[in-house]
């Protein structure tokens, strides 16, 4: 006997239905992809910590305690203190706020730009594609960091600038991946079928192309989150990131931590581990999402 996947639609209002489909999604996430579920939970914990940093942090992020400089982790200072006597745990919490905001916002922007350029050039093809792709070639031939340095030098360092520049930078580069995905989907006969039925371009793109290129979009997004956090760290290292004393993980990792590597390794270890965990869990969650959204991968057959 094969298992029948047909489920009767729950009755009730639209909201109720949405809630129940969300609940069944969460159940499936935990049952079919526990690793992805762990990723989601960890992401949520970090998001929670970032949002409520004010309440959770035992000290201010710039509260200097000269008598407690470079103290190792202890009950009083969970992650130790840095060379100025600031509590690293508190700084990591506040840093999460900036790092996660930058990472999510820039990745989101980058993904949206990639999808828009990729779909327009891939679906319409022809001359538009030719011109847009030569533009992308030109854009990608500049080293990322050089563009960043120029922009920051002109408009000054700050969170918004970093988000916009990284978003555009990765967005244009990622459009190639989306475009190739669109090209392969466009040639399938269900697209032809939708057109021959009389579906408009907008409809074909929204209902057929977009859902079918979700896997590369999700992978692109999760990869960008990691990349943005690391580039932000590089920028902070060059002194072009969010200006101190505001903590970001990248800044904490690469700033003065290098000078105290032997004396107080925890200064780099704490933000480094957080960074790794966030990047890893976003990737895990992204993979799980990709599998769960694909009807072909669903467990019941």
């Amino acid at each position, binding site marked *: 006997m094969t298992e*029948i*996947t047909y489920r009767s639609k729950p009755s009730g209002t639209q909201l109720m239905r949405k809630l129940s489909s969300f609940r069944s999604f969460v159940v499936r996430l935990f049952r079919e992809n526990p690793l992805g579920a762990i990723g989601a939970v960890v992401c949520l914990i970090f998001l929670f910590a970032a949002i409520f940093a004010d309440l959770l942090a035992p000290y201010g992020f710039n509260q200097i305690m000269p008598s407690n400089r470079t103290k190792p982790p202890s009950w009083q200072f969970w992650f130790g203190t840095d060379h100025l006597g600031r509590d690293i745990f508190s700084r990591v919490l506040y840093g999460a706020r900036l790092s996660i905001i930058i990472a999510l916002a820039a990745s989101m922007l980058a993904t949206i730009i990639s999808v828009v350029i990729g779909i327009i050039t891939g679906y319409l093809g022809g001359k538009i594609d030719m011109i847009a792709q030569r533009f992308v070639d030109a854009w990608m031939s500049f080293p990322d960091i050089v563009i960043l340095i120029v922009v920051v030098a002109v408009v000054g360092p700050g969170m918004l600038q970093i988000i916009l520049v990284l978003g555009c930078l990765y967005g244009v580069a990622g459009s190639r991946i989306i475009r190739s995905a669109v090209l392969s989907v466009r040639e399938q*006969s*269900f697209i032809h*079928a939708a*057109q021959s039925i*009389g579906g408009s371009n907008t409809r074909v793109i929204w209902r057929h192309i977009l*859902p079918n290129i979700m896997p590369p979009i999700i992978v692109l997004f999760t990869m960008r989150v990691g990349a943005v956090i690391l580039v932000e760290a590089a920028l902070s290292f060059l002194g072009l990131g969010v200006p101190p004393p505001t903590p970001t993980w990248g800044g904490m990792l690469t700033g003065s931590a290098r000078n105290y590597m032997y004396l107080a390794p925890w200064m780099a270890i704490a933000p480094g581990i957080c960074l790794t965990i966030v990047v890893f869990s976003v990737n895990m969650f992204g993979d799980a999402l990709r599998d769960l959204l*694909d*009807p072909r991968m669903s467990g019941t057959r």
Partner: protein
Amino acid sequence: MGIHTLAGWYPMVDNIIEVEALKVHFPVRGGFLQREVGPVRAVDGVSFFVQEGETLGLVGESGCGKSTTGLAVLRMLPVTSGKITFEGIDITNFDQNEMRPIRRRMQMVYQDPFGSLDPRMSIGDIISEPLEIHRLHNNKADRRDRVTELLLMVGIRLDMIERYPHQLSGGQRQRVSIARALAVEPRLLICDEPVSALDVSIQAQVVNLFQELQEKLGLSTIFVAHDLAVVRHVSQRVAVMYLGTIVEIASRDELYASPKHPYTKALMAAIPVPNPVLEASRAHQTIDGEIPSAQRPPSGCRFHTRCIHVMPICSEIAPELRSEGNSSVACHLYS
């Protein structure tokens, strides 16, 4: 006289579609500057008509332009020259917006049952999509009723409505494809090798379904296929294509009983006979050589390079399609 459909009253026309001297050429670009080096003449002067409620079989070997003809009739490919008249309206130069209301009246069933259904949509959504596009059943419950009706019509269990294409067999997918095409009550169905990707046992089921539906709904069909047995089963008239032209067009019985064109004869001879004794004793007339390039078709009659009855005139003058009774043939042997 007229016909009542969901969308209202339509005047009765004898020929639902008429195609005159249709040419579809694809430009081939090559060389350093991507210059045009001459077209591929995929369809080169094809004329036929399909009557109300009739099935026209379109047969020929791979690359002869039969699928291209189907797509051009559907206006999914740019037409180089010629005229396509659908229900008395000249649609040759319609753009995609003008075609939209026409698309409701002519639908297509595809060859590949795996690729022609969106893997991310459930069966119910796939079938109701044409209804949404043409705004036929505007509320959800009505649409669902129509989808249910269509599923019953093509013989798919109703609990499949929530399933996805990958959970269906090839035959079931093709049934869904047919249901999607029939959803908007078209008058003309263009079937591009609808059964050639299926197992033989399933082919029979789907072919029977086609006939049943056609009788029930009074559909006109252009049935593109390379399987002569299937075409014989479903069509009233059959057109044989070779290298972008129609070489013979005749009523089914006429064509299968007494093929005239040497190419048709060779095709008929290639149908295996089920009786092994007869099959072994049968004289095989085979065609030598390869189908010539559609970019540089032979002069005169296109079949003269492979024809066993070739005459001097064949390489000089292209024979016209001449009708005689129920059949038309383009061959100098009959003129």
